[in-house]
């Protein structure tokens, strides 16, 4: 693959039952490109955690995925409340998810740690009151 290919998704902040659609779409697209299943799995998991976070914590956002020569880049952008203490948010078990969300099985405080674990590079930039941008890379 010499040309960079990219996919854009709007992530709806309202609907819970359709949450995960952007990740499902990415998985499908990467499959069609014949990308290694292990890479697809890493990208899918990291992207799903990020997508769900945007739905739960930020009222939705946008996802941009680019397939480069040597890696897949995932950029998640939202205009939610931002993350005041990123180090704390990255800790396993830290969660501000409310009870109705926890009842669905979310809120273990493992999403951001999973995103870090399944990607080779991860950067969070966040401004309280403005929003959060998370960039992740998975190398081939």
């Amino acid at each position, binding site marked *: 693959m010499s040309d960079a290919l990219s996919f854009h998704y709007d992530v709806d902040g309202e609907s819970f039952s359709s949450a995960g659609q952007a*990740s499902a779409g990415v998985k499908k697209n990467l499959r069609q490109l014949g990308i290694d299943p292990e890479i697809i799995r890493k990208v899918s998991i990291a992207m799903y*955690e990020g997508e769900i976070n945007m739905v739960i914590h930020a009222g939705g956002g946008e996802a941009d995925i680019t397939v480069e020569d040597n890696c897949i880049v995932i950029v998640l952008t939202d205009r939610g409340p931002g993350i005041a203490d990123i180090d704390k948010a990255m800790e396993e078990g830290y969660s501000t998810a409310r009870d109705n969300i926890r009842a669905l099985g979310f809120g273990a405080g493992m999403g951001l740690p999973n995103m870090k674990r399944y990607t080779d590079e991860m950067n969070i930039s966040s401004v309280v009151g403005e929003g959060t941008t998370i960039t992740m890379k998975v190398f081939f």
Partner: protein
Amino acid sequence: MTVSELAQLDDFEAVALPEADREIDGAYSGDLLSWVMGRARAGNAWITIMSNINVVAVASLADTACVILAEGVIPDEEFTATAQARQVNVLRSGKPAYEISLILGSVL
């Protein structure tokens, strides 16, 4: 063992088997979705009591071999239809997660 072979055992019942011939390679038990995402391996049978629609998404993205709904949980129509559409195998069992684990431990 394949998912359809497991579905034929006494304590299990098929809910959706869009990829019935998928081989099961180990198992993971848990209800917190991010733990499952982080710890279950591709090809595992995933035992859970959760049956909301997000379970289908997690099973699909984490690439588990099948979901096993424990404790007699019955999923709704939407769950079953989505599983079918997204190639996610689902079984159910009246047994608790521990007993299902014991069975898997002896047949896998």
